[in-house]
């Protein structure tokens, strides 16, 4: 071989490989954010992403419900798990670096930001006004759901959570944001839901629809003490949504697909979504950790009729021998967020408070629930009876702390308005947001 030829070949190869255009590489698994908000199909895609975010285990996929019930635990359950964060919560010795608390906070705001991006760019959806309205309504619903739960858990007196209503795409600027007024946050929740009710269709498959929003509004109004509004919203759902109570109490839970009682769930399959309630409430056989949360005799004693299906809706953990709720036994079952049963309870309580009987009398509503579970009908009813029925029906679904605060009950001897029953602003938020102020007691 001629040496010059070797040299020439090598030089040609060297130069050929040295083309600077080779440096242009594009990521394969991602698209540029600048491009993500410019097409109609991508706005719809971001909405789907928002549902996925909202249903994550850290918040509405289960941990939020666990936080609410452990914080509000008045001897209904025992926490026996090994995780530190829930242990802090049930003991009311929460530190600002609590992992459950910060994960819930972060996740809720991720949902809010994604919903904001959808709402900010809704005008990109041009093909069909109904589609545009639906997408906006769903985004507002998800935003309202998260602001409501954030504010319920983190607001202290007038100090609500920071209200961010514009999607952040550019993170290079100043991102600090002070806390907004507690009532301003609730007002935003109500106005988002009212708008969503107008925008969404009556039925929307497993996504949120008009009645999901109406039902959430009923829950919000009840929490805020606006009984007439709560009653009317709940009544609207019961009368018009085409939903009905499941044939039995057991039939109301552990669905792979939503049933007639579900007004809104987060969807879980073996491939997508997470049901964290399973993690803490179920046996290992059912995909849990063996029963980190066991149900106490004190809770079972609430039932007044041994035939009440709810009084025995439990099973024994093969791991720790404790009593586990049967509400969460399908590892890949959907996470219930709003059931029709809650609407009956809201209507009953609100009618009782208002001295009205719109739609039904309180007694009729309560007996409807009792009848479904095989419990004897009551003949008369007090506000206290309605609260007890609520606890029988909705336990472990994330209502304990909020009902205690609403009713003014003590939790483990701690007064309902104690700062101990308010979650701390996560340390990470305080460290990165100079305008943030910590709650009292932390």
């Amino acid at each position, binding site marked *: 071989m001629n040496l010059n030829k070797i040299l020439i070949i090598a030089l040609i190869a060297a130069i050929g490989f040295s083309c600077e255009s080779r*440096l*242009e590489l594009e*990521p394969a698994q991602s698209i540029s954010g600048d491009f993500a908000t410019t097409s109609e199909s991508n706005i719809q895609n971001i909405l*789907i*992403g928002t549902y996925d975010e909202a249903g994550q285990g850290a918040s509405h996929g289960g941990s939020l419900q666990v936080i609410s019930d452990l914080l509000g635990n008045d001897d209904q359950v025992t926490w026996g798990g090994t995780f530190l964060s829930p242990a802090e919560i049930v003991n009311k010795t929460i530190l600002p670096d609590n992992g459950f608390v910060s994960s819930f906070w972060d996740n809720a*705001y991720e949902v809010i930001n994604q919903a904001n991006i959808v709402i900010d760019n809704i005008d990109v959806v041009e093909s069909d006004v109904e589609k545009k309205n639906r997408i906006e309504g769903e985004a507002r619903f998800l935003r309202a759901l998260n602001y409501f739960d954030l504010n319920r858990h983190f607001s202290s007196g007038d100090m609500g959570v920071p209200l961010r209503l514009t999607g952040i795409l550019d993170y290079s600027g100043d991102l600090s*944001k002070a806390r907004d007024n507690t009532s301003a946050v609730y007002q935003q929740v109500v106005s988002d839901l009212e708008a969503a009710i107008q925008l969404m269709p009556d039925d929307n498959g497993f996504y949120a629809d008009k009645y999901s929003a109406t039902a959430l509004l009923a829950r919000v109004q009840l929490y805020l003490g606006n009984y007439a509004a709560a009653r009317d919203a709940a009544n609207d759902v019961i009368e018009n949504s085409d939903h009905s109570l499941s044939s039995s109490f057991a039939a109301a839970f552990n669905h792979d697909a939503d049933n007639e009682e579900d007004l809104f769930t987060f969807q879980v399959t073996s491939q*997508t979504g997470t049901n964290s309630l399973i993690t803490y409430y179920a046996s290992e056989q059912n995909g849990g950790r063996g029963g980190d949360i066991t149900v106490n005799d004190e809770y079972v004693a609430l039932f007044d009729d041994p035939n009440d299906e709810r009084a025995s809706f439990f099973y024994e953990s093969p791991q720790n021998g404790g009593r586990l709720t049967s509400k969460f036994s399908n590892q890949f079952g959907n996470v219930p967020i709003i059931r029709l049963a809650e609407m009956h309870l809201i209507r009953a309580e609100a009618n009782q408070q208002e001295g009205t009987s719109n739609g039904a009398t309180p007694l009729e509503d309560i007996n409807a629930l009792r009848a479904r579970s095989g419990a004897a009908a009551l003949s008369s009813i007090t506000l206290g009876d309605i609260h007890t029925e609520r606890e029988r029906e909705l336990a472990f679904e994330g209502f304990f702390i909020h009902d205690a605060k609403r009713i003014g009950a003590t939790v483990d001897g701690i007064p309902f308005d104690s700062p101990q029953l308010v979650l701390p602003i996560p340390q*990470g938020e305080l460290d990165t947001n100079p305008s943030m102020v910590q709650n009292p007691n932390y």
Partner: protein
Amino acid sequence: MKKLSLVFGLVLFVLGTSLGQRTISGKVSDSDGEALIGATILETGTANGTVTDIDGNFSLVISDDSESITVSYTGFTTQEVSFNGQTVFSITLEDASQTLDEVIIIGYGTSSKRNLTDNVAKLTSEDIADVPISNFQGTMSGKAPGVRVTQINGKVDAGINIQVRGIASISAGSDPLYVLDGMPLINQNESGNGAPTNPLLSLSPSEIESIDILKDASSAAIYGARGANGVVLITTKRGKAGKAKVSLNLSTGVSSPTNTVEWLNADEYIELFTEAAINSDELSYIEGLFDGLSNGTDWRNREVDTDWNEIAFRDGSQQDADFSISGGDAKTVYYFGGAFNQTEGIIVGNNLERLSGRVNIKHNFSPKFAAGLNLGMSRTTIDRVSNDNQFTTPLQAIAQAPISPPRNADGTPFSGTLYPNFLLEQDYANYTTVLRRVTGKAFGELKIFDFLKFNSDFGYDLSYQTEDQFRGSLTPFNSTNGEAYTSNATSENYVFSNYLTFEKEFNTTSYLNVVVGLEFNNSERVFTSIDAIEFPSDDFQTISSAAEVTAGVGTLTAYNFLSYFARATYTFNDRYFIKASIRRDGSSRFGSNNRFGTFPAGSIGWIISEENFLKNSNLFSFLKARISYGELGNSEIGNFPSRFLFGGVSYNKIPGIAPTQPGNNDLTWEKSKQLDIGLEFGFAKNRISGEIDYYNKETDGLIFSVPLPGSSGAASINQNIGVLESQGVEIVLKTDNVQTNDFTWNTNFNISYNQNEIKSLPNSSADIIFSRNINRVGEAVSSFYLPEYAGVDPDNGDALYYINGEGTGRQTTNSIGEAERIVAGNPNPEWIAGLTNSISFKGFDFSFTFMGEWGASIYNAGGRFQSANGNFEDNQTKDQLTRWQNPGDITQVPQARLFGFNGYGHSTRWLEDADFIRLRNVTLSYNLPARVLQPIGLSSLRVYLTGLNLLTFTDYMGYDPESRSDSGSGVNAARGQAFYSAPAPRTISFGVNVTF
């Protein structure tokens, strides 16, 4: 080819005849008398020369007025031989490694140690041989000044952290660039279980000839944007001309944990927890728990007393077998090697087996053209255990109650333990990682002129890793009749380098060497994985048998670099040196506006001892001063860090998208500027020699994943923030203590000081706090940031903390929330040192290496479970028995309160100094004398006994001052933290080494 040699010969002939001429001849051999084949003989100052033949003989026609010849051979000291009337010569070349004049690999060329103006640490195969450890990085520990090598923990596959001159970056990669025979290596951790593995486990220490670590900017600048963390140049073994040398090494060893921690026995456990329960009014609860945990055994009479340490650990072992044949003739040199390593870790269920082979061949087609191939391949199989933050990792067994039996009477694991019994995972699950690796380089070298050489290298690196996990129906938390995971990670990297080397000596006083080149490097990674559940039975373990596939991943990513580089070295009068280099790197990793970076460096050196005023000094035999300055980059920041990205997600099997990364168009390289001032010296005929270096490294535009307020909807953003300054001193001292025929004793000591300090941060230098660490101006990177523990209130047994607030300084509180956090320690050491002594007496060799670290702290994140005065039911360290019991008790351990959360918050209570001195390696060997061996046809036979980590001197209370947690590797993960982390193994190995 023939034609050329003809021309070449003709030129010589013409040269020869045109002047007065004569012929000289001779033989070149090494100090052992072995002939050196292919040594170069040059008529000094001319291009006239020849090479020695297979017997080491040469003859050369030279001009009449010539006075000397220059004899050179790679790896040996070049010698100038004056004629003094002689015509026949017997020339003995000194092995370069025996003198100050080692050959140093500097990237795209070599230099002699004497002429080097850079700071490069060199280790040879002798330094790394005989260390009974399966990864080559571990062999460097304590031997290279300023280089800190830590294996994350004692698992055989555990990741390795190497810091060259301290930490130069906060969140970009801090690993040095590894270059194998000129080929940048893939060093991507592909572990799927959360605990990083060491991707370079694929390389057998036995195939390495030398490791050169480029530490200062002047040396590393030739690697530009990838040099900021230092560069580790690995050179594999190659043949030397001469008859075939066959070498065989066999060794076998046993290992055990360097240290264990003492836990409560059954008696103490019951005592402490009964007390804790009484203090919290939970007595009936705890007795019920004891009933359950003891599995029906009589705990009141301490029927079961399990030491879970003994269940989690075992005696490990290590087997090595290496084999090589090397040799060659004047035209071809070859090396064939194979190695086998089998390591059983000290952790139950953790094993490694590696098979590797290597072929290095080089052939001289003509005096002008040579080409060759280096090819290495290996297959490494690792049986893995879970990461440190899983119940199923063996070491978490230490949390179990000693009253629990590990197994039932029928031998199956007891499943009623406090936490999931890792034995269930051990018995019913498996996790195997197989790492296959091919690294090769084809190269050609063409001498265009005697002074101009062209090199073309094509390197290829393939890393192909599969992971297979099966968890049977009886494993903890399994509800789906078994689950399986399989993954396949393929990374390919090729590099094409072409460079010209100009090398010329001008009238014996000046020497100029210029390298100019071009390099293209492309890397691609494809990853796929599948998860599946629902198996017919535990006998079916592969995905095909699963009824339901639950997740699939398929990703593709890539990066590349295009680089231009140049380096010029000029030597004057053999004592003045000047060097300059520049590299221009472009990479796909950076935005189009910042795609290229330029990295210049320069250095000067002066061998003062060559000057007349020192030449005859009795004190100095060698004295050299050097100074270098340069700029380097760090591009280890992932592949698309600047981009604003949305990625695919799904909800109820409907596809969607979500933001995955905030964008930053301004993102650019981290630049580090480094100044190095060094002095090399030799006293008493170099019997005492050494080096002192001072350096100052300033990293500008640090890339940091800056945490964002959670309420903004994103967790962090990649930014170039702030400045980090790191400075230090390195001292190397080598002494020949005794030098007689029968007895030699050398000492090699190195000590390095490194201190880093953050100079500025973004947002007006606001603190960046993550986990239990802080980056704060004026403090070291990732300093610990914790409330300060103040001991126990003697009156009531409450844990106390210093408030450390304004005006409340040293007042204490029992509410941790009231205590301000303080900067409480540094996760990295300030001082590291190594001391190696080598003693030879007749046929015996004895060497030992001590290493040490000072200034680092370790936070035991498991402390709140392990040493928390019985807060949870976890077994406690023995020191918890000194808990507060009665008013007036003075102790550091608060009153035991089950679920009382008394002193359990993260605080300095579990932060400890991790200073240590460790007897890293001891080797005793005996070389059988030649008179015994020759009759049986062996050229050498050596038996040796070697030990690793034999002794450790430390006040650290945890398992090991070198072990850290392997879980949590994100940028915001805690630093310097231990969490059920396994200690390093102590290994004793016996081996035999034969060559013939």
